[in-house]
């Protein structure tokens, strides 16, 4: 073996990213869940527009992107599966033997899920908006402001994926992580009304509410999700997701696998 290859080759971030990409696209379950994430908003737009199941005060953008909320949950599930799948199948040892720098491996996973979800959601949600707009009668509903909102919507998918990844890293088991992540996304808006005036604080900080504000749906009222604007909401969600990822990185580095 030539010693030069030994010294120059390094299992760094690019290698880890390439490894993650191959692992991601060679397993059907993650690929299909990801595709579903992209397809659901479009199907939702077609359904909503065809049945005209919008509130009178809704916007074209908000109505067309109704299904982006469940799609965002799928994005979070994919993020969780990205690491829990490794624990479930035992490949986590193979992965860390190939690259023992665990923070690098997690960073590669984070980059993959964030980039993938951002691009897919941007394309899918733009398409959903255009389809909804084309199918709905002109002037019957307010149009809403698609730009720059669509970029924020795409970012909220990326952040949901990262949140899923952080939870998956901490929980390690697929079923537990998926339940947790769906709970985090669903429960605040589900349980919020039980808390009366505090509802806007409880429901308002969830990733779901940030998305609802961004798509400008009539559901996102100040009473239910608080008066924090769409972009500050997105920033807030990004902030605690980043904190959770840091926590997950610490746990991953300190743990035996």
């Amino acid at each position, binding site marked *: *073996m030539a*010693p030069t*290859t*030994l*010294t120059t*080759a*390094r*299992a760094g971030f690019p*290698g*880890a990213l*390439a*490894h993650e990409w*191959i*692992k991601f696209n*060679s*397993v*059907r*379950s993650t690929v299909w869940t990801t595709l579903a994430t992209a397809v659901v908003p479009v199907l939702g737009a077609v359904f909503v527009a065809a049945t005209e199941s919008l509130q009178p005060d809704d916007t074209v953008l908000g109505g067309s992107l109704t299904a982006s909320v469940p799609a965002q949950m799928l994005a979070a599930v994919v993020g969780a599966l990205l690491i829990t*799948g*490794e624990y479930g*199948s*035992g*490949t986590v*040892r*193979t*992965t*860390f*033997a*190939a*690259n*023992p*720098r665990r923070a690098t491996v997690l960073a590669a996973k984070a980059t993959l899920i964030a980039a993938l979800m951002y691009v897919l959601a941007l394309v899918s949600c733009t398409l959903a908006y255009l389809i909804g707009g084309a199918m709905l009668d002109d002037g019957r509903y307010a149009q809403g402001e698609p730009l720059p909102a669509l970029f924020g919507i795409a970012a909220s998918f990326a952040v949901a994926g990262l949140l899923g990844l952080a939870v998956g890293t901490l929980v390690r088991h697929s079923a537990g992580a998926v339940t947790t992540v769906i709970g985090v996304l669903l429960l605040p808006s589900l349980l919020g009304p039980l808390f009366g005036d505090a509802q806007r604080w409880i429901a308002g900080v969830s990733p779901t509410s940030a998305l609802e504000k961004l798509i400008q749906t009539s559901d996102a009222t100040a009473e239910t999700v608080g008066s924090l604007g769409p972009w500050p909401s997105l920033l807030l969600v990004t902030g605690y997701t980043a904190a959770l990822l840091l926590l997950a990185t610490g746990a991953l580095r*300190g743990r*035996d*696998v």
Partner: protein
Amino acid sequence: MSGASPLPTVEGMIEARELTKRYGDRTAVDQLSFTVRPGRVTGFLGPNGAGKSTTMRLILGLDAPTSGSVTVGGKPYAELPAPLRAVGSLLDAKGAHGGRSAYRHLAGLAASNRIPRRRVDEVLDLTGLTEVAGRRFSGFSLGMGQRLGIAAALLGDPEVLILDEPVNGLDTEGIRWIRGLMKSLAAQGRTVFLSSHLMSEMELTADHLIVIGRGRLLADTTMRDFIETNSRAHTLVRSPEPEKLRGLLEAKGADVRLDARGGWRVDGPDAAAIGDLARDHGLAIHELTPAHSSLEEVYTALSQDSAEYRTHAVQSPHAVRSSRKEKV
């Protein structure tokens, strides 16, 4: 460094120093120190639960030691720039995802360490998996899974190979294949470290032995020395008056036990001394056979010693804990 140097260098050495790993109050590896050198097959032997797999995970940096250290080529595993190019490992056959094809599994690993893609085809060919490379791992037999694990270990053309029970699940032909492979890799100057709980397997493959029991080092020696030192001579003796013979022998300080084949198995005096003793007392002898205990017996005795220690431990205040450990 000149590549012609035949002397073992730090390059391919695995060095454990006072390596200790506790899981809660269970000590899996207990102050283990050993050196695995290049150019020979080193067998890592111990009964199930002795701490072999834990030691291997510690070497690979998957588990962190409670105390002590272990290095590969003078470095902790985590500091190797491209680990797969330095160390190939097989931990268990279940190191691949059921939904992924063998080819994609290897391609991913190759990508992670910047190993050229053609190496994937080479190791698939080497392990006889070329035809099933496109098949998903879930459809693999235990033996095929083991071959895939070995293919992954060889991917980076590493100087050091660490294999945990590599013959598990392989058929006779597969076992012979892996034996030849290990020997040829060692002959190329690589470090080959493989674990097994079967002495018979080690006897045929390993040049050097590291034996552990209950996480502790029991022996670190060449296979030949191990046999010579540990394989004690004994004598099988039969007499029509067995009890009288036993009395005489035990009076001389011999250890006399009933042999499975009938007659006495005598440790201590050699055949000549036993024959003379019988003659002096006018005892008839019908059989007098010098014998050596097989390596399997030696190993069983060694690991039983550590098992006995375990039984004694049950008397201690740690009793409940130590018995719980055994189930893990």
